[in-house]
């Protein structure tokens, strides 16, 4: 049985590097790895998710926006965006089923495993999917779409519990 644990995202920063800057140098300066396309890195301070061609999400209170901005100098910028997202933690072995019920992405593929990040449509909402491990997958849903998505997912038989 897979359950949905729903709650605010808490601390979330958007790290944007200019086109043409050297990712490795920026990572070195920031002090944490900047994952490749479609990947996430989990660190003691939080997780870094690659969500766009020049955009990474810094998830967790351990990241200091100002310090990172300072470190990046004029190769990038950091913006707080926590208020715009709701996190739906899917806990259970059958979480792939929810993505196949309301999305059109190959979540059942062997290479949709831990550390995978995907930006895709779920129930008409533009969501970010972060596969933690075989039993856990986090969905980031735009806050204004959360009620719609959760209502539809409950309607499809997925159990919701408070985070």
């Amino acid at each position: 049985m897979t359950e949905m644990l729903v709650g605010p995202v808490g601390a979330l920063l958007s790290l944007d590097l200019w086109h043409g800057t050297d990712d490795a140098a920026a990572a070195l300066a920031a002090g944490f790895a900047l994952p490749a396309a479609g990947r996430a890195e989990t660190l003691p301070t939080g997780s870094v998710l690659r969500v766009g061609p020049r955009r990474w999400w810094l998830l967790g209170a351990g990241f200091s926006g100002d310090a990172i901005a300072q470190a990046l100098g004029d190769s990038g910028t950091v913006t707080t965006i926590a208020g715009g997202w709701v996190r739906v933690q899917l806990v259970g072995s059958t979480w792939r089923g929810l993505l196949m019920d309301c999305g059109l992405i190959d979540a059942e593929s062997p290479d949709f495993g831990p550390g995978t990040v995907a930006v895709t449509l779920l129930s008409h909402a533009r969501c970010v999917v972060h596969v933690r491990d075989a039993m856990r997958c986090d969905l980031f849903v735009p806050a204004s779409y959360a009620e719609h998505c959760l209502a539809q997912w409950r309607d499809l038989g997925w159990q919701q519990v408070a985070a």
Partner: protein
Amino acid sequence: MLLIPCPHCGPRNQEEFAYERTLDSVVRLDDAPDAAVTALYTRANLRGTDHEIWSHLCGQWLRLTRDRMSHAISAVEPL
């Protein structure tokens, strides 16, 4: 329902993409007025292959070389 290779995310279904315009209809800010109005208001609209600007919901803009009869995509470049 096309499967479009996003330069950043890899192949994704057409619903995640949005068509913008053809490459030759981009209106540059420094175009002279006549050239700008022509680029804005005329399209080759080929019944064949043309270069099109699309965007993916991950934020990647891309250029598709695509046949309007068969929908076959012969080339993709990031923008």
